């Protein structure tokens, strides 16, 4: 402290919240989900899908980014290794120009810093093998699990201990028929799950341009059914959707908070706890001959949607909204079906390519994608979370925000020294000018 200079107020000051107490999400409710409001870069210390297995053939190296953390993946002898994709030396992404001298290590292509794939330890430097730094430092490794053609990575803080890493099942939706008594489903057979024997997964992932929370809340928001009225799959199947679905009792949602299990919520759709709205007299809008598609949505941390009985019986749709930065997310949409025989696998694949992919994952879900992006600017600077005017049907997102605030394993800090941390970096601008939008995979160096 210099006595000659009087103390100055800090130049960047916090913003004061002014929230009306009459709102559905009043000040007190908002406080309960403050941790969720803080999680612009995602919840860290959770399992996220990284890539499909077929995207990682033997010896392939790929770079991705989740929750602002750059991650490099390499497959060796069938096994996937995941490490922080940022050399300790000068911060270069190892995946930008993969260099591997053997099956045990990955080297930085710039100055040759070489890391052990198992431990992340700095084992040597190509052109400086006697340096004192060797053996004293390294990069964080991330636990990996590969299941049903999907590669999951436990995205963690550097200090998160190995022994505390939970099983993948704690970050996946509840399973059936194990939970059929607890969450009965008289209108459809028990749905399959990713961890089931012979589970077959077909789907895609692509980058969406909005905050991951906006994307996630869309999936189980029952009031948004309106945007799907004109979708081809709805018309082709002669499904008639109500104008909206309103909560009809205070037990319309059940929290999922089992010890050592997933944490989230289940919605009792197509029971008397939710009421379809068939008419709006004011507007002269009326729905007749309701031929609904029975389905049910639930969501668990870190933001995994499950749509049971969708798009047809014995199939379940999972979605993830994996935060890349605070304004981009990797949108995963997969369909799961148990297919014990090759014939069933072929049939599922054919139907996926001809019907589900074009009409559901694209057609129907494309609608959700643009609806989320339409909300983004309102929330992008943080003010939307204070200024939104929620209503009774928003019980679903509000409950999700609270349960996520309680059970998340950590709030990802804003990305530092990574793609998207600086929105107007020259490289980013150059790529955008070249028609190359910010995305999920590392931009590999071509030479």
């Amino acid at each position: 402290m210099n006595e000659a200079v009087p103390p100055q107020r800090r130049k960047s000051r916090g913003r004061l919240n002014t929230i009306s107490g009459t709102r559905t999400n009043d000040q007190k409710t908002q406080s309960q989900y403050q941790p969720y409001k803080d999680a612009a870069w995602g919840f860290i210390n959770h399992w996220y899908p990284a890539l499909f297995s077929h995207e990682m053939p033997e010896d392939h190296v790929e770079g991705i980014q989740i929750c602002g953390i750059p991650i490099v993946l390499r497959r060796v002898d069938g096994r996937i290794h995941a490490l922080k994709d940022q050399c300790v030396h000068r911060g270069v992404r190892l995946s930008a120009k993969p260099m591997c001298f053997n099956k045990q290590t990955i080297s930085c292509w710039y100055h040759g810093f070489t890391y052990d794939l198992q431990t992340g330890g700095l084992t040597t430097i190509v052109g400086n093998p006697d340096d004192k730094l060797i053996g004293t430092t390294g990069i964080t490794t991330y636990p990996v699990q590969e299941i049903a053609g999907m590669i999951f990575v436990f995205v963690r803080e550097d200090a998160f201990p190995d022994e505390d890493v939970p099983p993948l099942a704690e970050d996946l939706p509840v399973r059936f028929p194990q939970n059929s008594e607890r969450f009965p489903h008289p209108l459809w057979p028990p749905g399959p799950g990713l961890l089931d024997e012979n589970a077959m997964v077909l789907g895609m992932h692509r980058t969406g341009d909005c905050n991951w929370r906006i994307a996630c809340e869309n999936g189980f928001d029952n009031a948004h059914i309106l945007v799907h009225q004109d979708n081809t799959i709805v018309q082709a199947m002669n499904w008639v959707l109500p104008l909206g679905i309103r909560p009809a009792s205070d037990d319309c949602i059940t929290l999922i908070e089992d010890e050592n299990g997933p944490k989230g919520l289940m919605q009792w759709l197509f029971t008397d706890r939710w009421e379809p709205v068939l008419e709006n007299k004011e507007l002269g809008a009326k729905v007749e001959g309701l031929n609904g598609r029975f389905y049910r949505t639930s969501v668990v941390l870190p933001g995994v949607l499950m749509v049971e009985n969708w798009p047809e019986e014995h199939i379940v749709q999972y979605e993830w909204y994996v935060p890349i930065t605070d304004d981009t997310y990797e949108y995963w949409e997969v369909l799961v079906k148990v297919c014990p025989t090759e014939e069933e696998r072929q049939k599922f694949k054919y139907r996926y390519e001809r019907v589900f992919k074009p009409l559901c994952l694209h057609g129907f879900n494309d609608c959700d994608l643009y609806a989320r992006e339409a909300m983004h600017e309102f929330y992008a600077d943080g003010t939307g979370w204070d200024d939104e005017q929620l209503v009774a049907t928003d019980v679903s997102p509000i409950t999700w925000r609270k349960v996520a605030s309680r059970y998340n394993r950590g709030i990802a800090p804003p990305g530092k020294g990574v793609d998207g941390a600086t929105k107007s970096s020259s490289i980013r601008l150059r790529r955008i000018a070249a028609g190359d939008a910010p995305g999920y995979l590392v931009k590999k160096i071509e030479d």
Partner: protein
Amino acid sequence: MSAACLVSLRFADGVEQRVDVAAGHGVLEAALAAGAPVLNQCRSGSCGSCMARLVGGDARMRPGVASSLLPSEQAQGQRLLCLTEAVSDCAFEFAYDSRAGAGGPAKASAFIDTIERIAPDAVRLKLELAEGDWIDFRPGQFVELTVPGTDARRRYSMASSPAALPVIELLVRLLPGGVMSDYLRDRARVDDVIALTGPYGGFFLRDKVKAPHIMIAGGTGLAPMMSMLDAIRARPGARPNVLLSFGCATPEGLFNLDELDLRSHWMPGLATRISVDSGAAGAAWRIGNPVAAITADDARDPASVAYLCGPPGMVRAAREHLEGLGLDPANIHAEQFVASE
């Protein structure tokens, strides 16, 4: 006669430093002169910051000097190094690692953001460190404020966690005729500048402890617990279960109940118990004291750790109570505050 004694200082992270202490000289003085990272503050036997455990050799507290160390603590080998002289070559162990005391306290200016009366005798004071100023601290530690317009200094534990910096929140107990109390009641205004130094104190949240945490707080002794709760909530990895027992004299004197409700919502592993010594019964509190609110059932895990903060009588009673329930004395961390006018 004898020359210097060789004193070995062992920190929790395995770092060991040896210093020569001349006969008749204080261990703390010699340790600081040699640059050893020993936490300290008052250097007069009251604050307890420089406490360490004698694990070898002989060293004695200066006779006839009043200290806040309990006879039972001394019997367990605890010493306040500011009052301790080495009798032979000896060794001390510290409950904190060598980085905790490195760097030492910093000076800073802070602006008042808000002054909020949260109970008839308690104020929540939110400060923001001035541009360019910074004070790093560990949850549980305290700072020393110079009361504006006076030379008086007062110590308060942070109620906010280091993650909230540059904002610092303090809980101040108002005393009749107290220098800080008078300032806050009569003169303090938003944007006033307060000079502070810190951090101080060996009472802070130990890292990486997964055993259940028992916290007992009396009155504004709740402040360091709030800081620790917020730090535990942000900890990477499995988080310990926490039982917080908080007590005030009367229902009217209670504060921070909404804040505790929020933490209870955010932290599945947190349980709170609120007590008042006397007054009307309420749904949110029981009649009794916060020490007795902890039962044998709460201390079933012998590895449980405890954090205590409140008036000396409460801290003493809590320590005895918890030791009686089977807690290891080494796992009981305490900070007592003494009211000053």
